[in-house]
């Protein structure tokens, strides 16, 4: 551990450039998925444990497109639409019936959904690790030491574009305003004539589409496997819990922080701690929130 620190800060400080960059690229993808979670959590109080599986599913659709000879980036709008429709179906069959229930119910129902999605993807694509080749140039800096694949920059840009688009959509469009109104007070929104059921449906489908986009980026940057979803779910929960609901800048910041924490944990403590790091962040955030609330004579709810 000490030698790793030495390496990082004394012998090869240029490593930090690579890691900070990677942290941002990873964080951008996390941010998309986490924002989707914050949306469904905030608007309809559904804690979607299948969030990561939606991401992986988007990745697999990109993989299919890739196999058909379509570059995932060109297939992106199509994938978003497919995921949007899938979100609608899931909403009608499952989510609709758990919204007004005990909060734990949504957690368990989406866990069942997660199991189901994993297994169907496993049946279709097999458990092998799959990858999508973006065929993009890999840039290098510092005498080949730092490598920046163009695809990661494109991903970051795409994530930024989509985040901006979502913000504009939320503030300008009628549906976006209805979503925000429902998030603040569903009953009042209903009184004002907003069809909250439609808002919920749209929100969940939108989340599904956002996850799908994140999945496309994942497929081009890392690898896909039917069972990797749960790790992404845990990360999004850590981010949203820390950032709070309906707080896009917070979500983005936290996503970058988590990306960096994972990178540095992998280097300093060793790769075996990389996944644990995300979980520790989650537990740490929850503990810290409890201390904070204790000072307010309250509990975390």
């Amino acid at each position: 551990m000490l030698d790793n620190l030495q390496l990082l800060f004394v012998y090869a400080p240029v490593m930090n450039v690579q890691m900070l960059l990677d942290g941002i690229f990873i964080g951008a993808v996390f941010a998309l998925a986490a924002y989707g979670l914050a949306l469904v959590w905030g608007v309809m109080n559904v804690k979607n444990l299948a969030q990561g599986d939606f991401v992986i599913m988007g990745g697999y659709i990109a993989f299919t497109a890739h196999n058909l000879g379509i570059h995932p980036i060109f297939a992106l709008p199509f994938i978003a639409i497919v995921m949007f429709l899938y979100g609608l179906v899931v909403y009608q069959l499952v989510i609709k019936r758990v919204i007004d229930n005990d909060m734990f119910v949504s957690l368990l129902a989406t866990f069942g959904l997660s199991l189901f999605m994993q297994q169907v993807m496993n049946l279709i694509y097999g458990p092998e690790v799959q990858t999508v080749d973006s065929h993009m140039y890999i840039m290098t800096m510092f005498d080949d030491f730092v490598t920046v694949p163009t695809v990661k920059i494109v991903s970051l840009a795409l994530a930024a574009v989509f985040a901006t688009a979502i913000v504009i959509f939320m503030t300008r469009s009628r549906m976006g305003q209805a979503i925000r109104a429902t998030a603040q007070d569903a009953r009042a929104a209903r009184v004002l004539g907003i069809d909250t059921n439609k808002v919920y449906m749209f929100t969940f489908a939108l989340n599904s589409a956002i996850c799908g986009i994140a999945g496309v980026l994942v497929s081009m940057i890392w690898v896909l496997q039917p069972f990797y979803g749960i790790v992404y779910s845990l990360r999004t929960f850590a981010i949203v819990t820390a950032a709070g609901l309906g707080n896009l800048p917070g979500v983005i910041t936290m996503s970058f922080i988590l990306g960096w924490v994972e990178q540095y944990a992998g280097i300093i403590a060793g790769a075996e701690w990389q996944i644990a790091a995300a979980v520790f962040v989650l537990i740490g955030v929850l503990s810290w929130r409890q201390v904070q609330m204790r000072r307010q004579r309250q509990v975390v709810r």
Partner: protein
Amino acid sequence: MAQNVIEVKKVSKSFGGVKANVDITMAVRKGSITGIIGPNGCGKSTLFNSIVGYHPIDTGSIKFEGQEISHLRVGDIARLGMLRTFQQTRIYTKMDCVDNMQISVSQRPGSNSTMFASRKGEIRERAEHLLEFVGLYSKRNLISGDLSFGQQKLLEFAMALMNEPKVLLLDEPTAGINPTLINGLINRLQRANEELGITLCVIEHNMRVIMNLASHIYCLSNGKMLADGKPEKLQNDPRVVDAYLGGH
């Protein structure tokens, strides 16, 4: 000279920029029935919540039997012997009335309730006795969630008595109750105070009720202590009349 069980000194509390309580000072004497009145939004509930421990206060001090409690949490305060009831009645809706009563026994140190005590025997007898006191004996085996609102309110009151508190803080005990039942409730409150020796502190909106009940009343307005004194005195205080009629 009776001593004060609750002493509130210069308590201020604000939410964001809104000053809910400013420099509130008040006291509740042991064995008395004390009332807190004031128009809607005057800061009654904020003060009440500060005392029982729902949020921290910005400045000032709150003492219970001489002990500073402004940093304690709800449960700790309750275990000191200061209990509250809720404006929106809160009972354990999926348990029957006797169970509701039995679990309400005092948890103060020194009380002989233990985690693994049996539910039979003396505790049950007392529970049934108190249910009789509030007139719910015939409903004792019903699931409490099936009771009417007024009955639930009585049950909550009985549960509070079961706990044998030193002080009981009641948040609008007559709100939402059928007017014909109000006199009965007032009567029971007075009996609890006299027979069981429980100090009462009542937030009330209904002037008629509080004037009949309390021996000392504090009136809040706009987050500040407006006036205090005996009911007769307040009734004639122009500031109080103003606050209620002035339409702030």
